[in-house]
């Protein structure tokens, strides 16, 4: 095994370790923050758990891991060949498309018609407006704010 390949492998494994470490650090920071905040909330129900100061303090602790991860990532990108290179398509001879079974075609047509009918019915029964109302307002708990 030549040196360059060894270096690539080492960087890849280092990046793996740091990626896991970064994830653990982020999870730990969130959990630690919440546990601390929960204790405060027992005495003051209006206390803010994720206060800017508390978030900043935890972010400061995660930052060194993040920077190490970022540095290793840059090194790994420089060392490693491109990951997941797309396969180039080489169509030698155009194949004739296989005929779709007639039954399948009818089913598809029927379902398209059903979809169109459902959409029209939905617009008429106020479903379209429902979507709009919910999309232009924020339900706090629905996006995890809670």
């Amino acid at each position, binding site marked *: 095994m030549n040196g360059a390949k060894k270096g690539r492998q080492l960087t890849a494994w280092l990046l793996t370790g740091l990626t896991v470490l970064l994830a653990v650090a982020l999870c730990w920071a*969130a959990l630690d923050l919440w546990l601390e905040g929960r204790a405060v909330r027992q005495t003051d129900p209006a206390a803010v758990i994720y206060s800017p100061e508390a978030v900043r303090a935890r972010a400061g602790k995660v930052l060194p891991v993040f920077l190490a991860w970022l540095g290793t990532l840059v090194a790994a990108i420089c060392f490693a060949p491109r990951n997941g290179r797309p396969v180039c398509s080489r169509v030698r001879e155009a194949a004739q498309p296989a005929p779709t079974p007639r039954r399948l075609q009818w089913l598809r047509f029927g379902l398209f018609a059903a979809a169109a009918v459902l959409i029209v019915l939905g617009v008429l029964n106020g479903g379209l407006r429902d979507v709009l109302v919910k999309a232009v307002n924020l339900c706090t708990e629905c996006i995890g704010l809670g």
Partner: protein
Amino acid sequence: MDKQTSWWSRHRPTTRRLVQLYTALLYNAHLKGFAEGEIYTGKSKALCVPGLNCYSCPAAVGACPLGALQNAVAASASRPAFYVVGVLLLFGLALGRVICGWACPMGLLQELLHKLPTPKIKKGRLTRALTWVKYVLLVVLVLAVPLYYAFRRVPLPGFCKYVCPAGTLEGAIALLLHPDNKAKLGLLGVLFTRKFLILVLIALACVFLYRAFCRFLCPLGAIYGLMSRLALLGVKLDQSRCTDCGACQRVCPMDIRRVGDRECISCGKCIGVCPTSAIQFRAGKAVLHVSDTPAAKTGKRGRRNLVWALALLALVGVLLAVNLPGSAETEPAATTQTSAETVQTTGGESQTTDATQTTGAALPTGSEPGQRLADFTVDRIGGGTFTLSEQRGRFVVLNIWATWCGPCVSELPILEEFAKTHPDTSVLAVHANLVTEDVEKWLSEASYALDFGMDGDGTVSNLVGASTMLPHTVILDRDGTVLYNRPGSITAALLEDFYRRAS
């Protein structure tokens, strides 16, 4: 340098990556939302986009089909979910899982994470078995949970609330990063912590496993997967030319058994490796050369460039339409208003007087804690009016809610219990100005022993400085001074704590 080994030839994005970037930008064209920290409220949000893209993202200009489906199921007790089911059927039949491979911002994010140069976990029997988890999530969290709670009159989009990483990343985190939303950090608690952990774990899994969320957890992919065989567009296999060599299955990063099955996202990686050219990207009977085929590089280049030029023109049009000042806002956007005024919401007409005449105190008028809330009168549902100045000497709780908001409905019993146990308080639950059903009918069926008002023209929301976030609660002491004014759910302990302080 040889053309084949030049940096550009090795790194240039594929057509699929460009389409992914294009659709991600198209779905999230309201870029000024990031600068303003507010979501888009234009009419286009009534339309669902095909891919998973949270509609609470500040940049989103369309609705998430999965979120819309859950909300429609949650409201199915009063209105059948025709529109969203029709739209999903249409997307599934026309595009199938091509949407996952080409037009899903979450798919793009997962693929970018997977590009980190680390060792990868290969697909196998276990990953194939795990693909069924998304169907379980579809049945349990997207259909069963919202349906169960629908009959208990609590709208609860289970997947959005408990799992969806798109909501956490694009909705919660993207909104909270804006300095103007710093006060909303007070909303965060156990739910956010849990969803943040899920987001981190999914992101970690995506580094080592190709599209881990898409393969194992995404219910939208599960829905489109059910329609894969019927989809007009996608990678199709000509069975008569197939020699069962298995080359397509080996090169595929997804857990397919055969090309075009429920797990195939039509990425097109298999097209070039098929020794008999039995795999093609087809739209009905037409063959599309979507990869960098020799044909596309020669004869079809002009047409391809024309398609891209038109698509970019459309994107620029959308970007201008939603980002230019004064772009159409159909829904009344709530803004902070701390001026001294008395607002009469009856019949949508407003009358203004000097608030100091009614409060007669030195405290500044406004909606921030420590300020005195301006007087207002609102119609009670079921008759009568509620005037804030008439509540002087009483502990007041104002709650802005909506029938379509799950956490809002969940906290109504807390407010009811509080009002019942503290007769010296005035608790008013004001329904937000946007309604999806007959609120009076809804309340008569739910029969809460609470005072309810209707914020017909959004003036109460404006007065207390409520944003588009619901629920929103304002607590006033016996002099009408604001003690608490925040969006998000409240607890019985919090109400008791403020009541004790005010006493």
